[in-house]
């Protein structure tokens, strides 16, 4: 039989993160969002709580938990705010995870402890101005291996777009996917770690974004940027396979985050519907409102079940490509639909940035885009069903 109950320690983690989000994040995050400011102090406290080390073993400074635990934390954070949730998601599943999964023992020991502690953040440079999901077709960034006096260096040239956590004052490195050669007709793609401060690595200005305004997202450019040969992550030519693996996991994490946003909309509306009056009755007494909130709760519930299922498969080492894509598609739809309904229930206040539902509305859209658009998810599902172009 299937049991969707969280284990006691997962439930305790959930309650802890919920209390943290309510007490530490909720009171101040609106201001950071409005000022488009990265909330360093909140991130530091998330680090103390151990959130950045959740799925990593203790020997690298992690918490000895798993990917499911990370997703539980993401859902609870996103119930209150998506900027801090995506900062955690990107830092762990895109920043630190490739180093843990594909790095050598030496690379893990060198970079993971600071990342697990949340004292440093890492970015993952895949998308380029000319393409994200269209990899390797749209990829232009190159890394050329040059040897001088027997010492090898990668010389990186190119531009990466929309890279989360890449320009904070605590960013330590970005893992970049680059073309390192050609195998016949095909491009050879590899992952290379570029530490912050490397010559020729230029961090662009922050984007002005529609949502996720308290998270750090930038364009990065590399001009004859040289790093040691040893900064190659995993095997040369395995970059494409590596990022497919990272994105399968990442989709589950984004689904959990989207579920949190969808649930946050329900939470806000439940409160508002019992406080606000219209036409001589509390909002909750209007059946139109009741039905809307019931639909919202149903969407959040379904979204949660899809990511629970995908995360459970991931942990069991089962194929997860289809289920991860379904979870991401369903949960991001739920987030978008719930954000639209929640702002509608709040009326004029829903259009104000100072109300959380206004932020939810702005934050929901990118969930249908980041880490593979909804169309890409449908493509993945169709392929898993055996449909061929």
């Amino acid at each position, binding site marked *: 039989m299937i049991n969707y109950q969280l284990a006691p*320690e997962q439930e*305790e*983690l959930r309650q*802890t993160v919920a*209390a*943290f989000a309510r007490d530490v994040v909720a009171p101040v995050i609106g201001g950071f969002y409005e000022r488009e400011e990265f909330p360093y102090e909140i991130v530091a406290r998330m680090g*103390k*709580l*151990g*959130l950045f080390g*959740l799925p990593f073993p*203790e020997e690298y400074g992690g*918490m*000895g*938990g798993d990917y499911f*635990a990370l997703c539980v934390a993401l859902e609870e954070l996103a119930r209150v705010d998506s900027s801090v949730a995506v900062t955690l998601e990107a830092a762990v599943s895109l920043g630190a995870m490739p180093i843990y999964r594909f790095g050598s023992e030496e690379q893990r020991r060198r970079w993971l402890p600071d990342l697990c502690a949340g004292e440093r953040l890492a970015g993952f440079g895949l998308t380029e101005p000319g393409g994200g999901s269209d990899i390797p077709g749209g990829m232009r960034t190159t890394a050329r291996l040059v040897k001088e006096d027997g010492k090898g260096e990668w010389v990186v040239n190119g531009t990466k777009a929309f890279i989360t956590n890449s320009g904070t004052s605590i960013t330590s490195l970005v893992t970049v996917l680059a073309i390192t050669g050609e195998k016949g007709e095909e491009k050879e793609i590899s992952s290379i770690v570029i530490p912050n401060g490397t010559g020729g690595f230029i961090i662009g200005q922050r984007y002005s974004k529609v949502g996720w305004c308290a998270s750090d997202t930038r364009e990065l450019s590399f001009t004859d940027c040289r790093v040691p040969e040893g900064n190659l992550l995993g095997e040369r030519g395995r970059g494409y396979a590596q990022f497919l693996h990272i994105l399968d996991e990442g989709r589950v994490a984004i689904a959990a985050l989207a579920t949190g946003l969808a649930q946050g909309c329900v939470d806000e509306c439940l409160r508002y519907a019992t406080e606000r009056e219209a036409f001589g009755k509390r909002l909750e007494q209007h059946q139109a409102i009741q039905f809307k909130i019931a639909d919202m709760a149903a969407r959040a519930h379904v979204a949660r079940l899809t990511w629970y299922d995908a995360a459970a498969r991931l942990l069991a080492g089962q194929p997860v490509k289809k289920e991860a894509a379904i979870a991401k598609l369903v949960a991001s739809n739920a987030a978008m639909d719930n954000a639209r309904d929640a702002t509608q229930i709040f009326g004029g206040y829903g259009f104000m940035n100072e109300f959380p539902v206004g932020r939810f509305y702005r934050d929901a859209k990118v969930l249908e885009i980041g880490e593979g658009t909804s169309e890409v998810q449908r493509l993945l599902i169709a392929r898993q069903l055996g449909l061929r172009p």
Partner: protein
Amino acid sequence: MNIVVCVKQVPDTATERRLRPGEGTLDRATPDGLINELDEYAIEEGLRIAEAHEGEVTILSMGPAKAAESIRKALSMGADKAIHVVDDGLAGSDALATSYAIAQVLEETGFDLVITGSESTDARMGVLAAMLAERLGVPQLTLASKVDIDGTRITVRRVSDEGFDEVEASLPAVVSVMEKINEPRYPSFKGIMAAKKKPVRTLSLADAGIDADQVGLAASATEVVDFAARPPRQAGVIVKDEGDGGTKAAAFLTERKFI
């Protein structure tokens, strides 16, 4: 240093709380039991003192089986071990009877420092620390907003109506701490996982050497004679400002002795 922190599980203050008809005792069967919020400051203070003075923190809780959840949370925060006194014979114990039972356990375990919250959010008696100190024959330093330990000297800032007093004593002693003395930590996931392996001793009345005739509802010195639900809140008074709003508001507050 052997530090014992007393922790009580209480009903969530955000939910509706009921008294049991007949006994007038709190219905503890509500689904949401939490660590008494003020005890979280006591746990945090205990952990900080233990970290600074190479001590060990033991959580001591008396309560029904359900209180084990709160004990587990205290262990997740970083306490080393716990003692849970659980026995049907304890149900209905008032502060005096509770202090007797807890003192019995403390006599047996020994301690350098006992820390409690300043009161529980359910009964709000705020007398347990003083009663414990009296029964154990050690100094009581209650309502502390700051605690310093130097060897066997303990100094606290004791909050008073006018400000605070500096109170000093020698260990062993009992301290009760005020809200906001510190910022209680959140348990980390590692702490949550580690708590599963930490020892919790469960003691019945007999195990703890507690005389059954001195605890429970029957042995309690206080008795709830009667209780009634709080009457529904009255509508507020609306004062119309006709240029003298300030005066009217001041008169209103003066009449009720607020100013």
